């Protein structure tokens, strides 16, 4: 009896397709990483400068340690601003998400309203928070106001999309039954939509609070307030030991935020 060699099953069975995929990957890496190989497509990477990276990283690391926690005042102010931005933005984002979510649910509103809602969702979701932040900075100037508005827009869009999808997945019968009693649209909302949506809505909102704490640390980099602004300033002054202190603070804050969010969501069943 010939012992048959057993091979684990492959993700792509055809040898030709496997070969083609491998060559595409290798080809892509060569083309993109070789400066000037294909004009416009190849990245302009200065490999010499990159080679120095390791020694620079070591140098930077040496200047970072030990972290400098002496400027507590500044650290605390940035931290407080970040948390307050996250709290206020979550609250208003949560409220604004309700009309946006309702507008974007096809089974509740007429087509023109739906299209308006969906395009608002699409535009706000496509652009990164930092892009939105820089626009608010241009309109409202530097400071936490731009940051809060950015996070409000992002939260509204995130929670609104979840809400719209949940409403669209509702069994149509419940809405039909409440309509059949002669209830008006607002009563339909509080009697059929609200009870069914509430637990998920609160869960997503709490999750978003946690996400806002994380994002509040970054909108500051373009000047929209919070600890991110302090961090960007420390980096531009090569104040690396203070930077590390800020980074450690951010990691702790994010960790606490995540823990809190999981705890609350666990209690919401």
């Amino acid at each position: 009896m010939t012992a048959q060699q057993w091979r684990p099953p492959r993700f792509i069975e055809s040898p030709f397709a496997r070969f083609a995929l491998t060559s595409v990957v290798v080809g892509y890496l060569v083309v993109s990483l070789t400066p000037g190989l294909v004009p416009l497509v190849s990245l302009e990477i200065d490999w010499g400068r990159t080679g120095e990276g390791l020694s620079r990283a070591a140098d930077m690391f040496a200047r970072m340690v030990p972290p400098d926690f002496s400027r507590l005042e500044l650290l605390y102010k940035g931290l407080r601003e970040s948390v307050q931005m996250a709290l206020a933005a979550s609250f208003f984002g949560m409220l604004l998400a309700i009309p946006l979510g309702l507008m974007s649910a096809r089974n509740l509103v007429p087509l023109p309203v739906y299209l308006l809602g969906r395009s608002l969702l699409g535009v706000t979701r496509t652009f990164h928070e930092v892009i939105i932040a820089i626009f608010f900075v241009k309109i409202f100037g530097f400071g936490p106001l731009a940051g809060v508005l950015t996070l409000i827009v992002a939260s509204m869009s995130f929670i609104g999309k979840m809400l719209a999808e949940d409403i669209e997945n509702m069994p149509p019968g419940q809405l039909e039954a409440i309509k059949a009693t002669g209830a008006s649209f607002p009563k339909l909302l509080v009697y059929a939509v609200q009870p069914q949506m509430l637990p998920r809505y609160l869960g997503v909102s709490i999750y978003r609070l946690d996400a806002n704490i994380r994002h509040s640390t970054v909108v500051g980099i373009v000047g929209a307030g919070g600890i991110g602004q302090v961090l960007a300033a420390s980096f531009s002054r090569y104040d690396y030991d203070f930077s590390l202190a800020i980074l450690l603070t951010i990691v702790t804050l994010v960790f606490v935020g995540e823990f809190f969010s999981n705890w609350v969501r666990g209690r919401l069943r």
Partner: protein
Amino acid sequence: MLMLSVSKLVKTYPGGVRALNGLDLTVDTPQVVTVIGSSGAGKSTLIRCINRLVEPTSGRIVLNDLDVTALSRRGLRRARRRMGMIFQEYNLVERLTVMENTLSGRLGYVNFWQAYRRKYSPPDIARAFELLHRVGLDGYEYTRADALSGGQRQRVGIARALMQQPDLLLVDEPTASLDPKTARQIMRLLCKLAHENGTPALINIHDVGLAQEFADRIVGLADGVNAFDGTADELTPEVLNAIYGEEDWSKTINRPTADSNKKMQRDGLERESAAG
């Protein structure tokens, strides 16, 4: 005096499916009318056109001198208050309690804040307790709808519809999702309450046996028009052929007598297993 009159009702769905094709129907006494017909004959569309959950394409529906087809949105809501509806899938709001679901029958009569805060008038609340007692759900007020069995949910559905104190009950396949025994209990309860309250009921039903046993009057739909209108006794194999198409009906047709109940229940089980 109650009067529901449907004349020349036509419904064409987007895509060209014509569910109703000039249907005429009049109900002018408090009676239980069952509507039978094969799937796609327009039973469900008829019921939903009467309270305009589905917009009729043309034709007239008049309820107590009120032209339902010509109403504004506000007028339509007022008209819907007078028509209680019961569904195949019960359609309770799952996360609300039995009591809230029952009281939702009064939503057309309270304002927004009262609805939001669940503040109904004392007579309404007493009536809700009474209805829950009559459908056999004493003590279930605080149970959430998603914790109930199918038969219990349909009982809440009946209580919700009767809570409206309707002039007319629209009932869409009340038993199609229930086992044969529960189906009979629900039909018996429904017809008893309709008779006690003197409320006419229009009941869509698949099950010819149940239709015959409980109906005062049977209406057969075929291809969106009225193919039969008469009493249970007049339902002959020829009539059933006209409604459903050729089939051997000798085992299906019953005279609704006491000793036929067992056999009908068996028929119900057979149909159930054949369907499954």
